[in-house]
């Protein structure tokens, strides 16, 4: 999946309510801009970041989904989501703003282990 020097970004917060989601994606883009290999995992409430059609201008924020759509410009392909989260949060049948590969808990453990460092947002 990822090479040994890669950094895993673990996104665990909903897009609105704290700065964490935005901070995480901005840090991820900074890494990618300097050609550092990165992966991103959405888990728990972080999965809410992937909902389509976030019209968050209504609450005075730029839509997080648009920020995530820009990940393609940075050639970030290692995008994962916790399969159990998808089920628990009722997201299995929801269209998502970017495609993410669902991973079971054991696969997430492998993912964490194979990265050199893990950053949590």
């Amino acid at each position, binding site marked *: 999946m990822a090479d040994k020097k890669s950094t895993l970004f673990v996104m665990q917060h909903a897009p609105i309510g704290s700065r964490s989601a935005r901070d995480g994606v901005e840090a991820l883009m900074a890494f990618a801009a300097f050609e550092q290999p990165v992966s991103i995992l959405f888990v728990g409430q972080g999965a809410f970041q992937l909902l389509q059609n976030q019209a968050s201008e209504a609450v005075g924020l730029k839509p997080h989904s648009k920020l995530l759509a820009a990940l393609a410009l940075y050639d970030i392909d290692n995008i994962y989501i916790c399969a159990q989260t998808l089920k628990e949060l009722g997201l299995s049948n929801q269209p998502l703003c970017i495609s993410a590969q669902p991973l079971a*808990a054991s696969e997430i453990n492998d993912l964490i282990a194979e990265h050199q460092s893990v950053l949590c947002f």
Partner: protein
Amino acid sequence: MTLHIVSCNPQPGSGFDTACQLAQKTDALLLVGNGVYSLLPNHTSHAQLLAINCPIYALMDDLNARGVPEAATGSQMIHYVDYQEWVNLAALHPQNVSWFD
């Protein structure tokens, strides 16, 4: 060999849940900050905590600060640590993953 550091309030859907789901035998789980409330024996999250099959650590200062009693946890499985031991745990595990509010 991951150290899961849980500082969030142990409520349904929180990082506490995720950490409990992910923690496997070779991992360790460290409760700090509001994560220590899961040590209260009648807290709804307590059973979930005890179901984990990896070593569980808790930062003594954070228990004390919140009035969460050590004895009331009623379990031999919890190892109480200070800041120095936290550093040792962090160094011992190749990956540290933080779960926070």
